[in-house]
Structures are given as C-alpha cells and as structure tokens.
C-alpha cells in the first residue's frame, strides 16, 4: 500500500486530500525498469491477481494467466496490479476514512471517472519510479483502463492489450448497470447510502445486483450447458415453502449474490458502475473515436469473444477501425468461445496463445532481453 499525501484532483472538480493505493507485485523489476506490466482489474476484481485472496481464501482471479512460465510470465516481467480508485480493498474509496472528518466517505465519495481511476494508477507508477510501462493489460472494465492509458499516456505505454471491452459504455451496458443500482436503492437497509451509520448493509439489493450482472457475464449456451433445467430439493425456508424446489441456476445465482455481498461494498459498486457508464473515449473529440489515438505509438492487441453479449465483437471492431484510422499499430483477434463475457477469466487456450505471443512480439520490438530457457 502506498500513501500519497498530495492526494488526487478529480475530473468533477473535487480533490481527494489523501490518496491510498493498495497493490500487489510479482516478479522482478529489471535494472533498466523497462519490463513492468500493469494489469487492470474488472468491475468487481481486486489487486490479488495471482495470489490467494485474503478475503475469500480463493486463488487470484487471473492466477492461471499470471505467474512463472505462464502467458504473462513473472520470470520475465514485473507485474503490478492495484485496486482501483473507488474500490473497497485498500485503495481510497467510499469505505476509506476521510482525512479531515475522521469518518468514512460512504455516500459522500465524489463521482469518479475512468480518467480518474487511471490518473491514480499513473501516480502509483510514478511512485514506483517507472517511466514507461512495457504493457497495460486488462479485461472488461480493465480494458477500459488500458484504452484510457493509450489515449492519454501513449508515450508511457509500449504495448496494450484491451480484452473483452469497448471504447464506450453502450446504452445496453448502462441499462444493465441501472437495474443493479435500482436493486440496491430499493433495499430497506440502503438508508440513502449511510447504511453503516445504521449498522446495516443493503445485502439483498447488492445480492440481486450481482445476480443480474452475473447473467450478463455468461452466455445462453454456457448457462444451458452448466445448469440446463435441472431442479434440486432445497432445505425448508420461506422461499422453498412456497415453491418446494428450485432450479439449479437459481441456487447458483443466489450463491453468487450472497458471496459477493461479503466481499464488496454497495457504495463502491455504485461509484464504479457510474464511472463505467460515463466512459466514452470519443466524448471530448466530437464523437470521432480516432482522435484520442492520434499519434499513438503503442502496439495494441484488441481481443473479443464471439459469445460476449455485454461487450460484443462489433464494439471491438469499431475500436479497431478507429485505431486504424489513427494509423495505430493494432492487431485484432475474435476468439471463438461459447462462454460469454467471462471467457477472459476462464481456460481459453487461444487467449493464452494470443496474450503470450503478443507480449513476446512486443518485447522483441521493445528490445527487451530474451527470456532464459
């Protein structure tokens, strides 16, 4: 964890007086400080990318991708992953104490944007004494951060891998997020965001929000294959008294919802989903998506998944065409998968090959030392 006493000025005009960033690192920073890869996590992800998560006890969310000899090889690269601004796992967010007030921000936490989230990462990279990152890698909201990096700090990133993402949050994406937020607002324990003052958490609302969002991360085919219409006998509760039994998919979603509530804060969820909704790289450029990438020298590899309906391939294609218009060095792969948006977190050999090969090729162009076999 790093404490930055000069804080962070936000796009909305507010200033956070004390900025704390929680992060994990893996591998060794080369003497030339040229082998650092920043991994940006998704909406509900965290900094524990390749190690046991102390909160859930589960392995890191991308431990199959990051490690010695893995596609993002920590024998070769120095990997950094930080908890995003507005998060609830150590980086300044709604659950952090306000320096001056002595109490948590809670619902007073200012509205942040993807630019603010990345600006906080820039401060961390500065603090670590790294002038230029070798690569920025991220899926979903992590991909939005990777795109923000190359749009705003292209000269500080040699290569970028935005995966299963989009250059703007679409109306459908915003609509899904709004349903999640309304579920939280409708919870009687919500108390207009001051729930901690009442010793409560809006667990049902946050759980429902997570259940709904989780459906959007999967595909119809993946759900059918995993659960079909199988039914199970449930223990006797108020719900099962009415219905007797329940579908396995229902039980799965309830489990997803209830475990999420234990590890995530509702105000953080609201803050970050809103930051995603505001995300539109072309907004400051009269709607021309190629302008933010003008003079972009970063080598970029865009990856999408064929069954992703949250960030469909069509959005990646819009991005790739804009990058081509800007003359950027871009690669684009659509990976055939029936597992929906979540495919980037799962065992997909084509994704592993793509990430490994792209980073390898980029390393060669960057003049990084060959890995010792």
């Amino acid at each position, binding site marked *: 964890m790093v404490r930055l006493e000069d804080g962070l000025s936000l796009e909305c005009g507010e200033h956070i007086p004390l900025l704390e960033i929680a992060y994990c690192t893996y591998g060794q920073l080369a003497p030339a400080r040229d082998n650092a890869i920043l991994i940006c996590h998704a909406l509900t992800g965290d900094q524990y990318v390749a190690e046991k998560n102390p909160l859930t006890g589960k392995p890191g969310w991308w431990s199959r991708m990051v490690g010695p000899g893995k596609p993002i090889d920590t024998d070769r690269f120095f990997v950094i992953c930080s908890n995003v601004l507005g998060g609830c796992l150590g980086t300044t967010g709604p659950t952090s104490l306000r320096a001056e007030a002595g109490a948590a921000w809670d619902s007073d936490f200012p509205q942040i944007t993807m630019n603010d989230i990345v600006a906080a990462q820039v401060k961390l990279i500065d603090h670590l004494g790294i002038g230029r990152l070798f690569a920025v890698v991220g899926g979903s909201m992590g991909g939005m951060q990777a795109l923000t990096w190359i749009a705003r700090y292209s000269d500080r990133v040699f290569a970028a891998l935005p995966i299963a993402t989009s250059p703007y949050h679409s109306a459908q994406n915003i609509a899904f997020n709004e349903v999640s937020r309304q579920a939280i607002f409708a919870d009687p324990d919500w108390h207009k965001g001051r729930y901690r003052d009442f010793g409560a958490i809006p667990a049902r609302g946050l759980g429902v929000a997570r259940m709904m969002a989780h459906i959007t991360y999967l595909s119809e085919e993946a759900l059918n294959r995993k659960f079909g219409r199988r039914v199970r006998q449930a223990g006797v509760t108020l719900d099962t008294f009415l219905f007797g039994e329940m579908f396995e998919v229902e039980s799965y979603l309830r489990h997803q919802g209830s475990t999420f509530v234990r590890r995530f804060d509702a105000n953080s969820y609201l803050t970050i989903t809103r930051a995603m909704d505001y995300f539109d790289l072309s907004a400051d450029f009269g709607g021309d998506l190629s302008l933010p990438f003008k003079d972009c020298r970063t*080598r970029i*590899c865009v990856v999408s998944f064929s069954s992703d309906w949250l960030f469909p391939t069509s959005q990646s294609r819009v991005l*790739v*065409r*804009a990058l*081509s*218009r800007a*003359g950027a*060095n*871009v*690669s*684009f*792969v*659509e*990976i*055939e998968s029936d597992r929906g948006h979540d495919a980037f977190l799962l065992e997909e050999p*084509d994704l592993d*090959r*793509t990430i*490994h*090969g*792209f980073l*390898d*090729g*980029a390393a*060669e162009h960057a003049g990084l030392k060959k890995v010792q076999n």
Partner: protein
Amino acid sequence: MRVDQQIIAEMITPGSRVLDVGSGDGTLIDYLYRTRKCDARGIELNMQSVTQSVAHGLPVVHGDADHDLAHYPDDTFDFVVLQRTLQAVERPQEVLRQMLRIGRHAIVSFPNFGHWRLRLQLLTTGRMPMTQVWSTPWHQTPNIHPCTIRDFVVLCEEENYTIRQWLAVDEDGAKAPWRRSVRWANLFGEQALFLLSRS
C-alpha cells in the same frame, strides 16, 4: 516462403511501411520485418490464421479487403500487397482504388484466367475449367471475379494506374519467360504479379 512471396518481398523497399491484405499465416510480414526492417502489418479473414499470426507476435487485424481498407487514412503505407485475393473480393475495382489511396504502391498477384489450359477446357468440354490453380467447382469457388492478365492491364489503363513492373509466374512461383509480351503471358502465365502506382 512461396517463391512468388519472395518476388513480392524483392519489390519492397527496405524500411518501408507495408500492409499485407490477406496475410495468411503472416509469412510475408514476418519476413519483411526480419530481413528488411519494414513496419509490416496484415489483414486476414481467416480467424485461425489471425490468431496464429498474433500468437507469433505479428500485428494482424481480423478483417477483409472489401470493408476494412476504407478505414485507413490516405498514404498510410508505402506498399499495399494483395496476394491471390483480387479474384475473391466483392468489388475488385474499389479494392484497387482503396489500395492505391492508402498506399503509394500496390502489389497485386492473381491467378490468370486466360491460361491456355483453361481456354482449352472450356472450348473442348463446354464446362467450367478446373485446374490445380482453379481447383474448386463453379458452385463452390470463392473466386467470384476471375480475370485475365489482359483484363487487368485494361483496368489499370482505365483507372490511370502506372504499371511499374509486371511478370507472369508459374504455380510453383518460378518466373516465367513471358514477361515481355502481355499476349504470351496471358496464354502461358498461371499467375500474374503487378507493381502499380498512381499516375
């Protein structure tokens, strides 16, 4: 690498910016980067080939000649290469225009439909010819716009393109001795290779 690709590579100035449309497994762009220090990129329709290329560290975009060239600005490249693909695109004339808009030079190779074997088959059997080069039956072929060397020369004249260099090559890629006469090349050349520029 195929010999015709070798000939294409020889036409390309070292250190130049190259777009290979229909880059396949990326052999040409890899060769151009390694031996000629070119900034070479690819567009490829077949996703498996794209994944393979990117996994080898080559910059390749999944896309096609008909729809994706329009997104590049004027003069982005020094050379735009189209290997054995012109006959399979939806609008060959438009693809050529785009190639010579985004690139200063275009290198185009295509199988010659004027080859004597094809002429003879059509004449004697009255059916669509099938050879080693034109190997799929008419109802399955992706080659929707076959043309002959003479057809191509006429198109270049109409569009006001300068033919800087041209030659006929055999299927195994060897240079054929017909390069002096369009008429002979059109009869005996299996493949044609043209280096064009704007007039």
